């Protein structure tokens, strides 16, 4: 099993359902966007338009973050994803500088300092996520390993109202993701960096 994702940007309207379901699923703190959508204005009036680029950790096969990590906290998992062992992370943030996709986020303060409701008591929902987001540690998209353990796709894939995302096994030649990677004109982002991402894009010029 080698986890991969295909995002067809032609089907993305920038609604950010993926961004928000990720925030809900993982209870991340403000400004931490494991999943996000880059919206860009292109061209001049009247020939102007917008592009939408959903982004997440690219779970690279040759990950700059893993190479930069001095402690081995960032590592390749058996399923082909890149994960962070928070107990080994010393918060040096070398990985953040190395990642060309800006996919990593650093917890500067406690959950309370980082709260969505400053000055208010932390509501139950966020309190239950306190220990998920350790101060002084780098974090990022994990591709929802807990959901995958139940044979579910990552939360962003399921939520997407236009089915712009396909998740699957890149090792399986017959998988839907491999069929679509072949059928559509797809490529990873910034492949010139040699990072060999596991996230493929269609509709990106």
């Amino acid at each position: 099993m080698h986890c991969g994702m295909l995002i067809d940007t032609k089907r993305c309207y920038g609604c950010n359902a993926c961004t928000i379901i990720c925030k809900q699923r993982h209870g991340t703190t403000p400004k931490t966007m494991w999943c996000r959508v880059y919206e860009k204005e292109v061209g001049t009036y009247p020939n102007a338009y917008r592009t939408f680029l959903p982004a997440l950790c690219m779970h690279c096969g040759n990950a700059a973050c893993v190479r930069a990590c001095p402690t081995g906290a960032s590592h390749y998992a058996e399923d082909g994803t890149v994960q962070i062992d928070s107990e080994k992370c010393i918060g040096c943030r070398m990985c953040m500088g190395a990642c060309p996709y800006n996919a990593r986020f650093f917890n500067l303060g406690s959950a309370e300092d980082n709260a969505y409701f400053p000055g208010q008591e932390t509501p139950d929902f966020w309190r239950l996520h306190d220990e998920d987001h350790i101060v002084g540690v780098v974090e990022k998209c994990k591709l929802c390993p807990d959901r995958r353990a139940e044979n579910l796709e990552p939360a962003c894939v399921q939520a997407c109202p236009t089915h712009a995302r396909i998740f699957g096994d890149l090792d399986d030649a017959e998988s839907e993701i491999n069929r679509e990677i072949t059928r559509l004109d797809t490529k990873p982002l910034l492949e010139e960096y040699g990072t060999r991402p596991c996230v493929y894009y269609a509709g990106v010029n």
Partner: protein
Amino acid sequence: MADKQMSRRGFVKGGLATIGAAALAGGISTHTFVPHANAGTPVDSAGVWKKNHCSCCSYQNCGTEVHVVDGVAVEVRGNADHPVNKGTLCPRSSAQLATLYNPYRVKAPLKRTNPKKGFDEDPGWVEVSWDEALDEVYEHLSATLEENPNAFAMQYGFSGGSLERNLIKATTMINESSNFLFSCGPLCEIHYSAFRFGGNHLDKPDLEHCRYIVDFGRSVGGSVMFASGPARVLAEALDDGLELIVVNPHQTPEASKGEWVPIRPSTDMAMLMAMLNVIFFDLDDYDKECCKFRTNAPYLIDSDGLYVRNPDRKPYVWDLADGVAKPYDDESVIDPALEGDFEVDGVPVTTCLAALKASVRETTPEWAEAKTTVPASTIRRIATDLVSHAQIGSTIDIDGVTMPYRPAIVLTGRGTTNSSQGRRAFWLANVINTLLGSTGCPGGIQASTAKEYIVDGDGMFEPTGMVTDPANVNINLPLTDFSMTSYFPLAVFPSVYSAATKAMIDPEAYRVDGKIKCMYFYGTNGIQADADPEEHADAYRTVDFIFMHALTLDEQSVFADIVLADSCHLERIHFREIGDMLAGDQESFSLVGGINFSYPAVDPVYNARQSEDAWVEFYHRMGPKKTALCNTFFSILAGRPKMLENPTEEYSFQELCDIAADALSPTGSKQYFIDNGFYVDPLPGYACYDYYETYLENGARHHIYDHPKLAIGKKYRSELERNGITLPGWENNMDRVYGEYIAIPKWIDDFINTENEEFDLLACNWKVSCRNLGEAMADSNPWPREIIEDWSIDDFAIQLNPATAEAKGLKTGDKIRVTSQHGGSVEGVLKTTNLLHPDAIGFPHSGGGKSMHASPLTRKGANYNLLLTTKPGYYIPDSGCLYNSARCKIEKIA
């Protein structure tokens, strides 16, 4: 489903809730919660998954599953088994836990201690017990109702739709008051034409078959994301080759998937008139067979524009085969004339189509270019492509039924319909669709499989939800309620909100003999939704006692005496028919009439009680009559009028819901809904298309000529003159009022589309996915707000085209003040963008809240509505709706 007819036609949209039902919530799933692999474990208990459905928008069609661990909802996801959303969720639904657990919710019943009411006055809220709060409310409510039911008023709005409780919608009916004031009404011009052509609130394009859409001012489903099908089907249709033309001053996300045709705000009707000119005079290509037998195009009219009728009051057509006039439904009619001048009983007559055609003879694309800035060649190309894509004459077989296939349409939405001449523009768009033969046919516009209509004596499709018969236009003075519908016979809601507000302040001017003494707010924020907050403040100050159910201390709460802490979606029982979607395919159309029925996922997070529970208690205290009315309305609204054995029994709200769940369940037990959350009984494919029922079964015709509006206008005028009155405030401008009641739209140069050197910009405003209408406390929700602020082009800034900004010496980041021709002004930060027409000034969202006790997030941004007006002479006179645009000027202030 035992009673299909009733479930589809009689089930009024709504969901229901009760207190103390959490224990019944269930549906233990086989799924187990696995803690995060390599981080701290947030929970150590597996918890349970509970079926539910989403209440975060007005549609409430999507199924959800809620993961509850130790009583806390830790996750909401789409129900993958639900055929509407197929496991997906929109951004608003994905964010709903940040509403449920929002600390700015009202946490207990509150009582005002400061009697002074105003935006700068702190109400001095103190928490009180439920008994104290409900007793005080009951004392005022019962005393008022005893004296005069019309001294009680309820104000209702879109958030009532998002937190739908159908019993609450019946509040004024049960209490026998006519004051059901809709704060969402001022911007609901959009529904008139949809009602008249389809018997429902919105037009739905059949995206599965459609191949060409010209979209004026609306989202097909992707720009304002709906997970209930529209966005998914749109994405698939575009993959399959759908051509999408977006005519809009603002480049929408959908426009990026098709062709953007920027247009000067508030001029859409000119382009539609030019398209009609091209269809008639350049192409002479439209569905003439459809016009002859499925519209009133061949009906004969006299010089006053009224139908010429036979002695049985049936409109005549001119049969070219015999050269004589015959009643429209005479079986001997072979070839009804679409054009020509004839004589019937010595009276010169012509046809409705001839009158329509004459109305656009001069409105060429060149004429429209001067008004719209859209090049004439572009208008000509779009009109030509529209007609060619309509494949006039082609048919399609749907489940064994042959129907016309018309895969080309014009769509119209709020951005167009609420602007200058918007109602007429929407009408013209539907006239074009009808001329093409696409109204109700595969590939075209569908109304709803749950539409409410009749075929009237003229053979025409008419909605039952609004006045279409002049006999029902009557003005009897003095008025005894504040609905104001006497002045606005073509209003699409049971009240005209802006006028009602004015009448509360000055009943004499509006000829009302009465006063509102007790008022109830539910799911409404008219202060933010309408144009003049201070006018609303003045109106509310005339009321002796105001109470409300509230999720948050919004602007309305500033004027309340008692605030009752309301429950949030996942804390209640709620049920609702699976209803209309913004757009769809055959599968999604077939699901209309299904039912979402959810029991609470969690206990109330705070000391909140579900609103219906309080009302049922009030009705029981009022006695058997009100108890019976409550039970009866609940049963009707649940779609099972005879489900209660004893209508006067004091059923608790919990009991009523349980009885409804049993009655609506395919197994006869509410357990079905606890286990599944929904039930659908898909319609056969052919029944998904209006053509099958409205034409093949019932022979209804559609209008290309609005004869009822003309006739209603004549009756309205006679009623006003009989009473010796005018529309209040329009004394010197009644020609403008009567001029609105015409059968064929015509262009009017008004205060918005007439050049004005000082106020040289046209304001426009649009929805974004994360916010939509701001329903369900969306403006207090930090997740969507963070995205809007940090990640979206359409953030809180005020937008201007870069060329316009440069000409005015302005740049991105400048602090600006925008002042409207009506005097209102807002301040904000400027952003330049090529995604906007140079004559427009753009406001994504609307913000600028005024309540000191609401979440600080609600105060961000500018309140767009302050630029608008409800002043007499400046609103839309036949509906009482306000123009959602104004001419503005801009100045740099820092």
